[in-house]
C-alpha cells in the first residue's frame, strides 16, 4: 500500500510576527527568514503515516513537504523519521490561499512524483492560509474517497480504517483505494521524537526536490496586499489585569469569585 503524506508547515507561532508582505509581482507571502515548523495537524498526519509504516511491512510511506527552499529544514526534520521516501515539492510561485490553484498544483505534483497513492494523508488545515477546504477539494479532484478530521487510521485486513470522534460518537470508515484523509490532532497521534542517530543521518542526506512540470496554474484569487494585524491591545477584551496593592487585588478577586455561579455558556 502506498501512503503519501502531504505536509505544508506553518510560520512558527513561538516568535512574534513582525513583518509580512507579498513578494513583489507574485501572489506569494514573503516568508524569507521566518522560522517554520509543522502544525499540530501536519504532525498528526505524519505520525499516522509512520504508525501505518510500523504496523505493515507492505506499506510504503512517502512524505511530501510542500514549499520553497525555506522549507528544507522541515524536509530534514521529516527525513529523521525515516519514511521510505521524502521529497520537497517546489511550490515557488504558488499561494496556498487560492485553493483551486493549489489543488491543481498538488495534483500535478503527485503525478510528477510518480506516486499512485492508495492513501493520501494531510492535516485538516494545510499551511497558514488554508481554511480547511483544500483536503476535500483535492480528494474531489483526484477521485478519492474523502474522510475529514480523522483521529486515527489503523491498519486492518480488509483495508485501513479511519476513525473520528463526533461529540460522543465514534465514526469509522473502511478506506478503499484511493482515499484522502485529513487528520486532526489528538493525544493518540502526537508526533514521536526522532532518534538522535537519525537526526544526525538526516543532516547528511541529499535532499530530493521535485518541481511540478511548468504549466500555467491560473489563479482565481489574487492577493493585493498582506500585512501583520497588531494583536488587540491589553484590556481590549473581557479580561483585565488586577491592579493596585496586593491586598486590594485579592479582595477584588474574592468578590468576583463569590458572585460567580459557575455557569457555563450552553
Amino acid at each position, binding site marked *: 500500500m502506498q501512503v503519501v503524506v502531504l505536509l505544508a508547515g506553518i510560520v512558527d507561532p513561538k516568535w512574534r510576527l513582525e513583518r509580512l508582505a507579498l513578494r513583489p509581482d507574485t501572489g506569494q507571502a514573503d516568508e524569507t527568514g521566518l522560522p517554520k515548523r509543522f502544525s499540530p495537524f501536519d504532525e498528526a498526519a505524519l505520525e499516522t503515516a509512520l504508525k501505518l509504516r510500523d504496523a505493515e511491512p507492505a506499506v510504503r510511506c512517502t512524505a511530501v513537504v510542500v514549499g520553497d527552499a525555506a522549507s528544507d529544514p522541515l524536509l530534514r526534520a521529516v527525513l529523521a523519521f525515516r519514511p521510505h521516501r521524502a521529497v520537497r515539492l517546489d511550490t515557488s510561485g504558488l499561494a496556498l490561499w487560492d485553493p483551486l490553484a493549489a489543488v491543481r498544483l498538488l495534483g500535478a505534483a503527485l503525478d510528477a512524483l510518480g506516486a499512485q497513492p492508495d492513501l493520501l494523508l494531510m492535516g485538516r488545515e494545510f499551511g497558514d492560509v488554508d481554511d480547511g477546504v483544500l483536503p476535500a477539494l483535492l480528494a474531489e479532484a483526484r477521485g478519492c474517497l474523502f474522510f475529514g478530521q480523522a483521529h486515527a487510521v489503523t491498519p486492518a485486513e480488509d483495508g485501513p480504517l479511519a476513525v473520528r470522534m463526533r461529540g460522543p460518537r465514534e465514526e469509522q470508515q473502511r478506506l478503499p483505494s484511493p482515499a484522502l484523509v485529513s487528520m486532526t490532532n489528538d493525544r493518540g497521534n502526537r508526533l514521536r521524537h526522532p*532518534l538522535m542517530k537519525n537526526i544526525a543521518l538526516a543532516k547528511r542526506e541529499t535532499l530530493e526536490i521535485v518541481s511540478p512540470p511548468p504549466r500555467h496554474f491560473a489563479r482565481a484569487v489574487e492577493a493585493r496586499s498582506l500585512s501583520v494585524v497588531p494583536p488587540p491591545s491589553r484590556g481590549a477584551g473581557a479580561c483585565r489585569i488586577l491592579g493596585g496593592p496586593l491586598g486590594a487585588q485579592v479582595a477584588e478577586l474574592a468578590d468576583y469569585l463569590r458572585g460567580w455561579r459557575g455557569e457555563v455558556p450552553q
Partner: protein
Amino acid sequence: MTAAIEADIIVIGGGAAGFAGALEAAERGASVVLLEKQPETGGSSAMSGGCLAFAGTDMQRAQGIEDTAALLARDLRQLGGDDADEALIEAYAANQLATYDWLKAHGQLFSPVLEASSGQSVPRVHTVDPADMVRLLAARCLATGRVQLVTGMAGRRLRRDSATGRVTGVLAEGSAGPLEARARRGVLLASGGFSRNPDLVRQFAPECEHAVFIGGDGCVGDGLRMAWALGADLRDMAQIKGTFGKHPTDELNNHSCLCVYKGAIAVNQDGRRFVDESLSYKLLGAACLRQPYGASFQILDEPILRSGDNEVRILDFERRLEEGLFIQADTIEELARQIEVPEAALVKTVADYNAGVNAGEDREFSRKHLVHNHGALRRIETAPFYAYPSTAAVYGTYCGLRVDPEMRVLDVFGERIEGLFAAGEVVGGFHGRAYMTGSALGKALVFGRIAARTAVGANSGG
C-alpha cells in the same frame, strides 16, 4: 550627563545569589542597589530544578535520615577530587544549615519528600519551587526598604580607584542610557554562569560542542569578564561538562531525567553500557557525549518507572511518560527495534546487568549503588520496558572566579581585589571534577549570604 546612584553594596544579578546577598546585607543594615540585566529577575535560579543540598535539617531528622555537615563535606570532597577548593567546601558545609533555617524563617516551603541524587550518600535533596523562592527573596528584600532593584540594567565595567585599586562601583547600561552605580562598601558579582554563551563555552570546553545549552537568558558571562579584566583568577574552567539525562529533541522540558538514579542503565546506540551509572551526572554527561551521536538511552522497566517522584523534576518519570517522551515496548527485543539498536546486543546487556545484580557484582563497570553510595541495585525484568533518549545539557558552567572563603575575589597572584565579592555560579573552585545535585543553587544562597556579610564587615577580618 550620566545618571548616578549610590549604595553600600551594589549587587550585579537578580538570581538566587544576588537576592540572598542583597537580603543578608539589608538585614544587617546596609543599603543595596541590585542591577538585573533582563527585564525580569530570576536567572537560571528561577528555571532550575529547585533542588537544594542541605545536611542535618529537621526534615531529614523527621524522616530518620542521618546526615551531617561533615558527611556532606566528605561527599563534596569525594566528588570534587583534588580540584575542589577545600576552604570553599568547608565554607559551604559550615553555613548551609543556617541558610536552610534562614530560608524557612523567611517562609520558604519545601516539598515533603527528600531524595538522594547525584553525588549524595543519603537523601539530601530539599526541593523548592525555584521561581517562587526567587520571588520570595526579592519580596523580602523590598520589604526591608533598603534594597533598590533596577531591572533592564546591565553591569558593563567595574570602576576602580586609580590610587588604591579598590573597586568602587559599576558602569551599567540600560535602555535609557548609562548609569554609574557607586558602592561605598563593595560590589557583589552575582551574575551567574555563561551557559548561554556558546563561544565562551567553546573556549574552555570544546568537547561540549554537541551538548544542549540551557540557562537564564542573561547568563553569558558578563560578571566573569568584568572581573577577569581586573586580573581575577579563574578556577575549574576545564570542568565544564554537560549534565546527563536531557532528552535531545524535547524542547518543552528544561530538565534532565535521571532514571539511572532509580535503577535504570544507560546504553549507547550499539546497545552497550558505557559507564557506572551511579556516578555524578556531570561525569555521566561527559561519558555520554563520547558515545556515537553524543546520545544514549536510559533503559528501565515498569517498577523503576513507577519509583519516580513527581515532585522532583529530575525524577518525574510518569509525567514524561504522559508527554510521550519514553519509548515503550513489551519486550527488550521490541524496545531495541524501536530505538534501532541491535536486538541481540541490548538483550545481552540487560541480561548481563541483571546477572551482575544477582551476583552482587557489576563486572563491567563496578556499579554498586543506585546513586553515589545510596540504594541497592535492581534488576530490569518486568514489562513493559522503557527507553528514555538522553544526551548531555550544559545547565551551568560550574566554574569561574577564584574567591577566598569569605567570597572576596582573588587575582591571578592570589591577592584580593579589594571591594570586589562574588557568589553563585560566577564563582569557581567549589565543585571541582564532579557535581552534587543541589550544590549550585545551594552555593548561590549560601555564598551569596557569606559575601554580603563580608562586604558589610560582619565576618571576621572583613
